[in-house]
């Protein structure tokens, strides 16, 4: 991935650090840095590397102290806001040019901080326009500047400085000798922070938290002390568990799945979860509950299978180092972070876990838990039927096929990033890519929504089709179905509609390829099963001389016809 760092101080230190960290985290970055205080040139010179290299991401790091430098010395106790406005607006103008010139690049800009303090410390806030107010003033400006720009996001670097303090973050020796003010520690932390934003951008995030109960969701061992004896309260030390649960609920609200894996007697534990007055996470919050005396490996395997997610999407939280070790040794892909020894640190611990970073929230995120729950019901329901077609009919499925639009683009991009099993080519696209495709007359982006008697599954299918050879051939660039709906003939309906659409437009052939990965076996025979013939290079479907397979149990609403008319 091409990344560019632009700023008004020496960024080489930061870029080196970011590069080393990305290697450890196995994210392939190619980083270019602007020369010292050259960001303006990198923005207005349209022949510069900024534009030539088509970066996916640009980080802009403007140090406010440097930006306002001599203003501090021009005035004594009060600062001239007009002069500050001039400087800030000038910089933001450049960023505006960049954002408009590169609509397909994600631009991250650091929020503002001042790294030295005023010599008039006790005048801060006691007079108008004091030094202490500048940071807030500039950040408010920055926020209203980025609001209308969809491809610019703020990096909350100020929060790092608050957490570690200026004394740890700033190295004046480097500031005066190399024009980079960050300390060794600061560089490491900022690189980590930038990488969090990169990962959030590409949608690299865990999906599920598997939780232990005793000494994890509450204090004490329920089997020994009983429901009244556990630590869980809205006051006192038990409040740490209450807060911890509240934070987990917040993750749940954004679509992170919760599950229980606990060695306990099920009735006792469940009664507490249901009835304890300070239990935030009531039984329905957990998609799967494995409360038994089996070993945790077996339970976690069943959890992964029931929800249908990979081990690399799971975070396992358990206070016992023994249980963490055994899970890690069986499933090294599972993250097993060490819980703090002191439970009062649990809320802080969960807030600082870096597995669940978002850059925006899609509707599907907030509804994900609902749809996973419906899916588990569906699977259980399926066992009542010995005839699969009867089962399909009974689901009362309605599929809607449409072309990508602004509200569906974030979800479509997310699907290309996260879908592994039913994904013919596994090309990963960003929101900006999909945006670009949907504006390109030679590329069509489709999505499929599925509803059934259990509820709305949301967008669960995505296809990118390229028109290659004028008028005769269209090519499947991407075709993917969410693992939640595999085995429900959705893919057949989806490809049928795509075929019918191009047939009407007098195309002759639809071609595609299957690029095998470790995880996409479920769609290995997709082409064969849908009458494509392999020509040695591509799978080819002859639209003139083939009829699509009927799927009578699914109602189809195509929004594509409207486009044709």
């Amino acid at each position, binding site marked *: 991935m091409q990344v560019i760092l632009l700023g008004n101080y*020496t960024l*080489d230190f930061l870029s080196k650090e970011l590069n080393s960290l990305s290697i450890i985290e196995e994210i392939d970055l190619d980083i270019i840095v602007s020369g010292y205080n050259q960001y303006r040139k990198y923005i207005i010179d349209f022949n510069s590397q900024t534009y030539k290299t088509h970066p996916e991401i640009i980080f802009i790091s403007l140090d406010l102290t440097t930006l306002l430098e001599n203003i501090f010395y021009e005035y004594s106790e009060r600062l001239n806001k007009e002069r500050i406005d001039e400087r800030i607006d000038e910089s933001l103008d450049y960023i505006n040019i960049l954002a408009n010139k590169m609509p397909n690049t994600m631009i991250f800009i650091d929020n503002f901080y001042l790294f030295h303090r005023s010599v008039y410390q006790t005048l801060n806030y006691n007079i108008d326009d004091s030094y202490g107010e500048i940071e807030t003033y500039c950040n408010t400006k920055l926020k209203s500047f980025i609001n209308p720009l969809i491809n610019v996001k703020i990096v909350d670097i100020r929060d790092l400085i608050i957490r570690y303090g200026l004394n740890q973050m700033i190295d004046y*020796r480097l500031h*005066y*000798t*190399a024009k980079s003010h960050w300390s*060794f520690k600061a560089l490491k932390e900022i690189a980590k922070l930038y990488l969090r934003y990169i990962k959030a951008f590409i949608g690299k995030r865990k999906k599920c938290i598997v939780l232990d109960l005793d000494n994890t969701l509450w204090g004490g061992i329920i089997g020994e002390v009983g429901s009244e004896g556990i630590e869980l309260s809205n006051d006192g030390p038990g409040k740490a568990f209450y807060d911890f649960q509240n934070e987990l609920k917040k993750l749940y609200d954004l679509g992170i799945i919760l599950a229980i894996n606990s060695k306990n007697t099920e009735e006792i534990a469940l009664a507490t979860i249901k009835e304890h007055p300070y239990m935030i996470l009531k039984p329905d919050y957990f998609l799967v509950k494995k409360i038994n005396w089996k070993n945790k490996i077996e339970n976690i395997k069943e959890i992964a299978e029931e929800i249908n997610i990979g081990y690399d999407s799971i975070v396992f939280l358990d206070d016992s180092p023994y249980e963490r070790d055994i899970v890690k040794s069986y499933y090294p892909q599972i993250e097993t972070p060490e819980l703090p020894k002191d439970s009062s640190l649990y809320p802080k611990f969960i807030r600082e876990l870096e597995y669940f970073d978002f850059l925006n929230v899609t509707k599907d995120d907030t509804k994900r838990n609902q749809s996973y729950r419906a899916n588990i019901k569906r699977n259980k329901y399926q066992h009542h039927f010995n005839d699969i077609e009867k089962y399909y009919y009974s689901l009362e499925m309605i599929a809607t096929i449409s072309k990508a639009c602004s509200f569906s683009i974030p979800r479509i991009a997310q699907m290309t990033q996260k879908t592994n099993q039913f994904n013919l080519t596994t090309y990963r696209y960003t929101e900006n890519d999909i945006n670009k495709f949907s504006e390109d007359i030679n590329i069509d982006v489709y999505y499929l929504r599925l509803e059934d008697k259990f509820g709305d599954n949301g967008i669960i299918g995505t296809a990118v089709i390229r028109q290659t050879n004028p008028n005769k051939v269209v090519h499947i660039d991407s075709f993917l179905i969410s693992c939640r709906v595999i085995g429900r003939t959705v893919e057949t309906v989806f490809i049928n509609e795509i075929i019918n659409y191009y047939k009407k437009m007098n195309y002759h052939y639809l071609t595609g390829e299957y690029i095998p990965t470790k995880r996409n076996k479920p769609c290995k025979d997709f082409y064969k099963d849908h009458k494509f013939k392999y020509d040695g290079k591509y799978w080819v479907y002859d639209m003139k001389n083939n009829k699509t397979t009927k799927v009578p149990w699914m109602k189809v609403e195509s929004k594509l016809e409207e486009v044709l008319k």
Partner: protein
Amino acid sequence: MKIEDKVIKIISKVFEIDENQIGLESEADNIESWDSIGHLRFIMELEEEFNVKFLTSQIREMASVKKCINALSEKLDN
């Protein structure tokens, strides 16, 4: 590990050269990747490893393995 071995290890890491090519006589002038930015990164790594802090005026001087060892021994003795 002796001070000089640790210093050589860090030089090798920061300047991306083989440890065998670094000796007591090595200095910034005969290692191509030892530029001004690299020099400061190297000093930061040294400070982290030995848990010391150098003065701005010392940092400039420490452009060879020998000078680094001297500066470090002085710090560590105190």
